[in-house]
């Protein structure tokens, strides 16, 4: 059995003159949860749509489960599951009817469906809701049902486009547990997200920005190897004054809010800590602590995006 579930080679998609995906190459191994992380309009959905044969790549190649994405889309569709960004269920159908419908169109027998439904609903937390109309379900339950529907035919590979948008933290945790269970059984998952904390859950991930893949690796690799800059975390008050002062000083490449803290990113930051403290205090900001920390994914992400923008400023 091939150890690669999915791979692309310099895949690109142009819409007229707009380049939505630009020479993206990556691969997902079997049993791996692979994350595509990127801001709005980065090209994540477009990439997935090409992998599913919904869009024809302008150039480049791709293979999913050993099938060519352009010539063998049919074979791919039978074997993968897809929860689109705007996955829509039929609101007038019940939970069970939605599940049975999606299972049925993949050719799963009625008997097998009944069994799987009980099974999947238990793990996913939909037990006892079989007969409820989807129109009466809460957002989180709908998202879980969408995932359940995509699992009805036991796909080898799952595409999840922002599966946790608008889902409460507890449901998100449950969803990730389920993905780990699936991966442990040998299924692969390609998941897109905006959430940094969620990206940390992936086995490996890629940053996509303006159609390009700008960094790739495990979350750990991203934080230790991809980051040429370092991060100082400053706990101080008031935050907005501190931001203004530090940005005006231009000692750091980037000064950003990180929850109730400030992250200042740049080179040789250790030497800049005491001058920064002094400067802040002289402007009336109370500094509780300031230290060099291991960058978070978000820091890495912001730093990477900055370097792309500096190398290739957006025209217009």
């Amino acid at each position, binding site marked *: 059995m091939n150890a690669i579930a999915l791979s692309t080679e310099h895949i690109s998609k142009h819409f007229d003159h707009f380049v939505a995906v630009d020479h993206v190459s990556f691969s997902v191994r079997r049993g791996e949860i692979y994350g595509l992380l990127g801001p709005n309009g980065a090209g994540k959905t477009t990439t997935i749509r090409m992998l599913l044969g919904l*869009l024809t790549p302008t150039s480049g190649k791709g293979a999913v489960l050993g099938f060519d994405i352009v010539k063998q889309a049919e074979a791919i*569709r039978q074997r993968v599951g897809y929860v*689109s960004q705007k996955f829509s269920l039929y609101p007038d*159908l019940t939970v069970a009817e939605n599940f049975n419908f999606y299972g*049925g169109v*993949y050719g*799963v027998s009625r008997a097998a469906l009944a069994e799987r439904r009980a099974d999947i609903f238990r793990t996913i937390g939909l037990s006892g809701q079989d007969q409820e109309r989807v129109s009466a379900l809460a957002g989180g339950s709908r998202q879980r049902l969408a995932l359940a529907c995509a699992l009805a035919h036991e796909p080898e590979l799952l595409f999840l486009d922002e599966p946790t948008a608008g889902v409460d933290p507890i449901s998100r945790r449950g969803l990730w547990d389920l993905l780990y269970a699936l991966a442990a059984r040998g299924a692969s998952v390609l998941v897109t997200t905006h959430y940094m904390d969620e990206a940390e859950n992936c086995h490996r991930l890629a940053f996509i920005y303006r159609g390009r893949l700008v960094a790739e690796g495990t979350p750990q690799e991203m934080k230790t190897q991809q980051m040429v800059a370092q991060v100082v975390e400053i706990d101080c008050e008031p935050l907005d004054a501190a931001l203004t002062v530090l940005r005006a000083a231009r000692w750091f490449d980037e000064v950003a809010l990180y929850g109730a803290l400030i992250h200042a990113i740049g080179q040789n930051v250790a030497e800049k800590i005491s001058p920064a403290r002094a400067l802040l205090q002289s402007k009336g900001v109370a500094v509780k602590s300031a230290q060099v920390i291991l960058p978070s994914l978000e820091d890495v992400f912001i730093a990477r995006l900055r370097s792309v923008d500096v190398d290739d400023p957006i025209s217009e």
Partner: protein
Amino acid sequence: MNSRLLSIIRKEFIHILRDPRTLAIMFIIPIVELFLLGYAVTTDIRHLNTVVFDADRTPQSRQLVEAYRASDYFAIARYAQSEDEIAVLLDSGAIRAGIIIPAGYGDNLARGAVAQVAVLIDGSDPTVASTAFAASQSVGQAQSIKIVTQRLGVDVTRLGGIEIRPRVWYNPELRSANYMVPAVIGIILQFLTTLFTALTIVREREQGTIEQLVVTPIKSWELVVGKVVPYIAIAFFDLLEVLVLGTFWFGVPIRGSIPLLLGLSVLFLLASLGMGLFVSSVARSQLEAMFLAFLTMLPSIFIGGFLFPLEAMPGWLQAISYLVPLRYLLVIIRGIMLKGVGLGAFGDQVLALLILGPFIMFGASRRFRKSLE
């Protein structure tokens, strides 16, 4: 049947059953349409409101008025005192015809001279006018023959000459219900299938479920067939509904074979489903789909031979009408119901539907498949 197709059909039936209002509308539309068209769009013109200005006031003139009344075409609503009064009444629309018998009518007849009578007809509705026109002449002629016969003391009809004996086949009483009811079947089949095919597909697009369907192994023909099968079933139910009502309420005969009628209707459905599919690939919302479906009905209603006879249209319009599938179905339905003829009589129509149906379906499927991308 494959499981994909079955799943779609099952799901579509659930959608229909969960929406009882729409379901009710689908069964009521044919009844309403049938009654409206069976009664309102009647071309039987009888009992036209008529006013008489009898300036003669002789037994002869009264005889003439009586002849008009007896003809059933004219209902003598009132008597006027002057020609001007008739003009006013015609202007107001209160009456549709006026009979003016000039003074001296009786005398002229007695002298054996030609007696003139004027009949004024409101021509604003040409159908009404032409019937009134023909009726006024034939009543006058019959009366004239009667008078001549009396004068000569011999039966003039026995003096030789030509006697025309028109006999009307298929619909001897010329009842318009016999003409309309079969046509309503055609209109309903087309309307339901076109509109609901378009609506059900556009709804999936509005909900965003279509993208989800496209990445399943469903083939586009399965999607289309699966979605329309329930509506075909409903269309056939409606067809039977109209047949039953038409027979028992309007007394329209069914002289031919009902299975043949159903079979050839299926052929027609290919074309109307194709139109629905086409509409679904163009419309972005259900409202738009509704408007477009009505739009596709217009040529069928006006140049498909539904309301107006094809023979009366200018040549170029007749040429266009060859592209309207309903035109062929109406010939078939009227033929089977009223004439009781068999398949052999519809060679041309069947051929035309066999060409048009797949052609429309093919074009629409291509567009539909493109619209999925």
